[in-house]
């Protein structure tokens, strides 16, 4: 058991932290958000330069050879910075699907482009009826000669607006909610038959509704014809990454709150002198540290090959993250009072992001039910 980072990890952390400190002040972030795309292309370039876009890929494909810990380091820092760029969609989700489902040819072709910042991905998976059920796919992929033809509607596709390429899930066989027969397909965003409707999300990011109508996919663009186990694995990795991001956001919310308690004066004293407020800040701190522990646990367990063990651990982490985010986020707003309710302070932005992380890939209640059904965490 070893909680220390390797020298390489330490350097990575230093460089991401420096990027956040230098480039992601609240005012800077506001200016990035004003772009049409909702983020700053120059930051994406910088990610490429820093090697962040290459992190989880094998060195043989031009990657950095990192694992879940490296992703955790980046995502935690991004959570602190409230980073707007579509790193999660491209590297964690898209990159994850590519790593687990892609052929050598796919990897050779695409990873270099991702790493250089020339290719952004989005995962077009959710549908109107699917809620948090990863197997609930109705979009169809029909054979047509050597090609597949996709037909269906995808919903809540994160960063579906700025992605160059979509990874689309569609049924090659079976009915909605069958575990078998869900294929994964690489589709250019501008391909014929793809239409996209863009919109902002509550946390200032972007998503899209995507309609697929007679979209032709050549055989070389099929990642797999039985993708659910891979989707589940990548969802687990994604949850671990989101957990780290949430911990970053919570860390800042807590720090901002403690700072506010020290500086804000009422009735002639700093309000941090009031014991009831101190204790609430402590409750937030305890919740934060419990979340940090579970984000580490999720990071460690996201590499577990046994799907049941992995999914139990990931569900447990998502429960803790969701619950802690409520305690920390609601506490941060309450202790800030009225100004915490405004968009003028950063704390409300963190609160919104942490809240939205809860509804991604299943909220705390959903995962608690999943965990309760799956049996015990206590070995």
């Amino acid at each position, binding site marked *: 058991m070893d909680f220390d980072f390797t020298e390489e990890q330490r350097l990575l952390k230093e460089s991401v932290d420096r990027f956040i400190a230098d480039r992601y002040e609240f005012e800077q972030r506001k200016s990035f958000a004003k772009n049409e795309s909702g983020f700053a292309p120059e930051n994406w370039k910088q990610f490429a330069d820093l090697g962040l876009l290459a992190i989880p890929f094998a060195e043989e494909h031009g990657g950095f050879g990192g694992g879940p810990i490296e992703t955790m380091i980046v995502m935690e820092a991004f959570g602190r910075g409230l980073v707007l760029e579509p790193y999660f969609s491209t590297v964690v989700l898209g990159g994850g699907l590519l790593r687990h489902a892609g052929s050598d040819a796919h990897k050779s072709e695409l990873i270099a482009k991702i790493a250089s910042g020339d290719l952004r991905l989005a995962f077009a998976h959710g549908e109107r009826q699917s809620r948090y*059920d990863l197997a609930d796919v109705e979009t169809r992929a029909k054979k047509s000669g050597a090609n597949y033809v996709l037909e269906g509607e995808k919903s809540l596709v994160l960063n579906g607006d700025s992605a160059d390429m979509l990874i689309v899930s569609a049924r090659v066989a079976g009915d909605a909610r069958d575990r078998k027969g869900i294929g994964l397909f690489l589709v250019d965003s501008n391909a014929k038959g793809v239409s996209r409707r863009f919109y902002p999300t*509550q946390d200032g990011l972007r998503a899209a509704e995507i309609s697929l109508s007679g979209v032709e996919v050549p055989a070389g663009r099929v990642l797999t014809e039985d993708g659910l186990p891979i989707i589940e694995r990548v969802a687990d990795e994604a949850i671990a990454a989101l957990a780290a991001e949430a911990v970053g956001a919570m860390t800042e919310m807590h720090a901002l709150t403690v700072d506010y308690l020290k500086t804000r004066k009422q009735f002639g004293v700093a309000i941090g002198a009031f014991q009831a407020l101190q204790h609430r800040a402590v409750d937030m701190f305890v919740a934060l540290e419990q979340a940090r522990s579970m984000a580490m646990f999720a990071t460690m367990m996201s590499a577990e090959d046994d799907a049941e063990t992995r999914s139990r651990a990931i569900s447990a982490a998502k429960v803790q993250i969701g619950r802690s985010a409520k305690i920390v986020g609601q506490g941060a707003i*309450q202790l800030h009072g009225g100004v915490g309710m405004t968009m*003028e302070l950063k704390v409300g932005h963190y609160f919104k992001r942490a809240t*939205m992380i809860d509804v991604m890939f299943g909220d705390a209640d*959903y995962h608690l039910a999943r965990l309760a059904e799956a049996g015990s965490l206590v070995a």
Partner: protein
Amino acid sequence: MDLRFTDEELKFRDDVRAFFKDNLPPAIREKMKEGRHTSKDDLVQWTRILNKKGWAVSHWPKDYGGTGWTPVQQYIFLDELQQAPAPSPLPFGVSMVGPVIYTFGSDAQKKQFLPRIANLDDWWCQGFSEPGAGSDLASLKTTAKRDGDHYVINGQKTWTTLAQHADWIFLLARTDMAAKKQEGISFILVNMKTPGITVRPIVTIDGGAEVNEVFFDDVRVPLENRVGEENKGWDYAKFLLGNERVGIARVGVSKERLRRIRELASATTDHGRPLIELPRFREKLAAVEVELKALEMTQLRVVAAEAKRAKGKPDPASSILKIKGSEIQQVTTELLMEVVGPYALPYRQEHEEEKGWNEPPIGPDWASTIAPTYFNTRKVSIYGGSNEIQKNIIAKAILGL
């Protein structure tokens, strides 16, 4: 002791309910149900319907247009109003400055303002809070210096709800700069069209801009716009804040909200099964219903006790109503978040629809207000005396700690 409504009270409830059913404009009801903001026009329209019926200022003394209802009838009226669900009359006029004017104001003030409040001819807003004051209201810094037969007002107010629509503002300002904290404050009525007033919206985390900062830069106000005596404004403010308790628990709002949750959870499926059928979800809902029923009984106890109390002396027990009422409102918004699930994500600009935006919604058509409602409802444990302040009040005034 008989905790049931009497037959007369039941009859009254049915009458009120029927009136709301027949007279609340459907478009307004729909907005209220969906948690969208009502417009200025909506509120004016609805207030005038109520006023025509004689119900716009139901709790005022009969002489000024009130109804003479018993406290229980007032409670039933409010409960039914909230459950309709209908907008409440604008509190800044009806519940705040109105009672101050009819209690402490001059005859001229009464004549000028009270009927216009009842009919929402004047839109009022409240100028108490200042930046940096928060719960320590009396630390306000805005000044009103005499200059002939005028006050000249300088300073800044904040959290001024709906000031963007306002014709008038009532405010607290320091008229004696040498006096101690709570002394030397006067209560002044200011026409919002007076030169020197600037309103700046504050965007809140739900994306709305209901609250504002209001800046006063050498704003000249006739002395006769002061209510009551000079330097006694703090007394009037305390009186006003004591009156603010009516309906603070918002039991009717939460009842309506729970009904809506049940409705939406029946229409939302999880792995092919309506959410409402999941035992864990039903139990969470039931747990809130229990708290709400208890709160309703507690509120009725406070209402009954109020009938016997000296007027204007707030019951510290009403702090319980504020604490529990806000907790329940907040937890209902968390249940809504659980129902809407991933469709909490899309952000739809307020009033997009009214601006002619008519694309179909993302996900269920009721989804777009859920996350903003959750965010916005964090305020209910902050404003009107934060829950921490309420606990201080109970600790001191009831427990003697």
